[in-house]
């Protein structure tokens, strides 16, 4: 556990034969003798090679701003109610359709037909553009997204959502990925005639190979009212853990993700909202046993909600079984879900 560069004595300089700390040149393979009678503090000798390695390692792109808390969020189980049947069918290498039937006890039952088109412009391993994803339910409500890589560093996305014939959400965004930073601008529901809309700007910068810092600015405007909200984010990535903190005027969000082993991953989240005057803590874990084709996720939070999902592939059939259960002890409520995915 802990960083790759934790507690290890500094190795003698390999081949170059120079001592960075004393400025002496020694033959290769020989260490530099200590010339001071005072023994340096242990932390100093352990920190120096770590700082040198961090200084030599080039900074990499920190990824998308929205993905900062993603690793921790993916550990937690998703709540599902009722019965869900999903059938996926690939018609070609570029085109896939899916049918989703949801029978719900709490909400409305629905049927959705979805289609996914993937283009032939390859930008990386398993990355093809443009990507068009859409689905429509039986009442004509549409969700659609178009994602395209315009240049090597510039990616754009358009998203639409309708409720029957009326457009509810429409937004476009452009994401630029530099060598060690990512900048994104999103425009949501722009209405030139009414003078309303939302603009969101994100910036995330790699400061060191382990640390990334960023900021978010949300500006919203409608007739007679406008306002802006800012928040700052910091992320520290260790060898097997990621700690992220987002602080803003609306509240704070802290997450800690830890990979204990190949099978076990753990996540802890703290959310505090100054607007709702409420805080909550969640603890979640994920057990992945590929040999048994089993994925189990469990969570418990400070609102006395305990939940779990079990996903099992029923090989050799192209079937996946999903069982889900959430218990709210405070409100004495239980939600149970059952799902089957074909294809």
């Amino acid at each position, binding site marked *: *556990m802990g960083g790759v560069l934790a507690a290890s004595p500094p190795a003698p300089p390999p081949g170059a034969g120079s001592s960075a700390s004393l400025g002496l040149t020694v033959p290769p393979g020989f260490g530099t003798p200590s010339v001071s009678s005072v023994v340096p503090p242990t932390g100093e000798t352990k920190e120096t090679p770590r700082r040198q390695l961090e200084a030599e390692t080039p900074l990499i792109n920190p990824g998308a701003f929205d993905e900062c808390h993603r690793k921790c969020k993916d550990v937690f189980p998703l709540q599902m109610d009722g019965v869900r049947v999903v059938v996926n069918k690939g018609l070609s290498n570029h085109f896939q359709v899916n049918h989703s039937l949801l029978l719900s006890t709490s909400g409305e039952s629905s049927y959705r037909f979805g289609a996914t088109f993937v283009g032939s412009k390859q930008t990386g391993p398993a990355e093809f553009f443009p990507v068009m994803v859409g689905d429509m339910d039986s009442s004509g409500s549409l969700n659609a997204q178009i994602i395209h890589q315009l240049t090597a560093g510039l990616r754009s996305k358009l998203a639409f959502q309708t409720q029957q014939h009326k457009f509810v959400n429409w937004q476009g965004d452009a994401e630029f990925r530099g060598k060690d930073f990512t900048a994104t601008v999103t425009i949501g529901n722009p209405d030139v005639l009414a003078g309303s809309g939302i603009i969101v700007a994100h910036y995330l910068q790699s400061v060191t190979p382990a640390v990334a810092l960023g900021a978010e600015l949300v500006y919203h405007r409608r007739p007679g009212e406008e306002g802006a909200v800012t928040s700052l984010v910091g992320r520290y990535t260790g060898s097997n*853990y990621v700690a992220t903190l987002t602080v803003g005027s609306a509240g704070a969000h*802290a997450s*800690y993700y*830890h990979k*204990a*082993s190949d*099978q*076990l991953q*753990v*996540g*802890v*989240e*703290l959310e*505090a909202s100054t607007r709702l*005057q*409420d*805080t*909550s*803590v969640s*603890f979640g874990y994920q*057990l992945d*046993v590929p*040999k*048994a084709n089993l994925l189990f996720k469990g969570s418990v939070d*400070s609102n006395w909600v305990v939940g779990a999902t079990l996903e099992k592939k029923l090989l050799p059939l192209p079937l996946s079984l999903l069982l889900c259960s959430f218990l709210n002890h405070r409100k004495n409520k239980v939600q149970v879900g059952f799902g089957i995915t074909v294809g």
Partner: protein
Amino acid sequence: MSGSNVKKGSSSRAMEWISSACRFAADKNDFRRNLLVNLGLFAAGVWVARNLSDFDLMSPQPVT
């Protein structure tokens, strides 16, 4: 007799203290107190996550 009364008194005081501590921690009306309690729970969760030992679910069971 007085010894058993003293013991009963101290155990009931301990139970009272525990129940008042639980009521204090679970009170949702005070945002700052709620935040402090949840910060402590978050720190405890991080400590548990960092100290989980590596285990293999598919390892053979020990022979008894």
